[in-house]
């Protein structure tokens, strides 16, 4: 079984600064593997460990070329990493991202199963996995909270709002995994050293795929307008402090 895990390199949210005009400033922000993608990587690696197979990692967009991030993903178990380089702008849209990933999967070839995180760590529209599956035309699942391989097919549990269902799904398939699926491992020193020796392949977006017909166009990205709050703060556990705080609450709770 050949498993490809798709992941996104997202900016570190702690490094976000907001400019006076409310636009985000990511200059100097570090990048990391999207936190939800870590569950997809772990699920793929565990599946290959138990059922046999090969695990490959694929990313598109910013960070594809970053050797630190390449090692970070490879230290988690995949045997090789593939990246599709592009400029940030192209990838603000989930359809464009899914087109690129589809092209990457076709270029890798012989793929039986694609795993994604339920959503990206920055935008979290939860569309790329489902779009990718629909574009390739494979059986597609989201909200997958447990995944195993038995009797030549996937056994997938989906955790939905009002129910839980377990499905037997023939390959090839695309599945998006939730954070309930597993606890991602922390790579050890041996894994980190081994990661440096694993193969990395980088393609240019232009050589793998034509841009999709009609994605969403970003009109603006703006921090919320600051809600003015009174900020009347009292300190301490004295009867007085509690009485003052109680008085405020009492007024608004009338």
């Amino acid at each position, binding site marked *: 079984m050949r498993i490809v895990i798709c992941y996104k390199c997202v900016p570190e949210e702690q490094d976000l600064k907001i400019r006076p005009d409310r636009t985000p400033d990511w200059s100097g922000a570090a990048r990391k593997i999207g936190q939800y993608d870590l569950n997809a990587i772990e699920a793929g690696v565990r599946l290959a460990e138990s059922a046999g197979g090969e695990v490959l990692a694929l990313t598109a967009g910013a960070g594809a070329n970053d050797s630190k991030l390449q090692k970070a993903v490879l230290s988690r178990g995949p045997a090789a990493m593939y990246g599709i380089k592009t400029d940030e702008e192209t990838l603000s849209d989930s359809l464009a991202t899914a087109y690129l990933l589809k092209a990457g999967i076709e270029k890798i070839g012989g793929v039986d199963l694609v795993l994604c995180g339920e959503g990206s760590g920055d935008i979290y529209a939860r569309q790329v996995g489902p779009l990718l599956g629909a574009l390739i035309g494979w059986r597609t*699942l989201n909200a997958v909270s447990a995944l195993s391989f038995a009797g030549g097919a996937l056994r997938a549990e989906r955790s939905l709002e009002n*129910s839980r269902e*377990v499905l*037997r799904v023939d390959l090839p398939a695309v599945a998006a995994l939730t954070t309930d699926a597993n606890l991602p491992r922390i790579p050890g020193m041996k894994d980190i050293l081994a990661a440096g020796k694993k193969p990395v392949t980088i393609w240019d977006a232009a050589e793998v795929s034509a841009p999709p017909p009609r994605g969403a*166009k*970003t009109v603006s*990205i703006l921090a919320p307008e600051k809600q003015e*709050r*009174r900020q009347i703060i009292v300190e301490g556990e004295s009867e007085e402090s509690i009485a003052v705080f109680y008085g405020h*609450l009492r007024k608004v709770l009338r």
Partner: protein
Amino acid sequence: MKKLKSVWIIAGGAERIAELSAGAAAWGEETALIYAGDREKAAGAGTVYYLGPLTGVSYLSYIPAIVALVREKQPELVLVESSCDGRLTAAAIAAAVGVSALTDIDSLEADADGGGIVGRRMIYGGAAWKTERVSGPTAVVCVGAGVFPPGETAPPPGEVIELRPEAAPGTRLLEQQKKPAPNVNLPAAGRIVGVGRGLGTADNLGAVRAFAAALGAEIGCSRPVAEEERWLPKERYIGVSGVIATPEVYIACGVSGQVQHMAGIDRAGVIAAVNKDKNAPVFRQCDYGLVADLNAVLPRLTELFNRA
């Protein structure tokens, strides 16, 4: 606003159908609902396409039929319930039509320049709003709860067309379990007491419950409390990826005030906070604050409210 010719909705729960149906009626001349579930509940739009039951059937098996129907009829806008199955369906339609679906949209407008629909969603864990425009023969939008107020009068019962498609091959449902209905409706709560990690241990929840009871408030929490500490069930977690709540009063207890959490509550009328760390960001985002140890002050506050 010039109405679109045809607006469809895809939803399951009665409340969400009522909301989306009101939205569809405001946007479109003709409306249709695509529905799976109990046959007698298949109502809420001018035309109802009934897929079949959901007992013993996964919604997944209906998606190819939904995609085929939308491609054939080409509604200009499809409003989809924001749910796991909804997002999967939206993506399947979007991929077939060649557009991007907008998800978790909290406001929707017609593009002033004509041609296109503009939606707004939260990104970066609540640190920013992203406004996007989609155009195309069919726009697909997953709409969050509460975006459209439900209509005052129920829409007239429409014609019901039964589709009952064959299940797609290669997928078989092995088990299906209903989850117990959630016993809290935080978006509808007028008063909420929010629990953060600053509570210390689950043993202290008793004091919070007593306090909330004295106020007649519901209990909510931050993401780590539900997902990491597991002191409270997930349905109670307030934040960008959880519940967006708009109570008249929110009292944050041991909540640090991370943006992911505050984005889910910043439309509260009044925010109060108790935290022993006076540098906690929550104090810069609240109306009334008390810098104190929760376990010392909550029982005393509870007593004051009970006496009043």
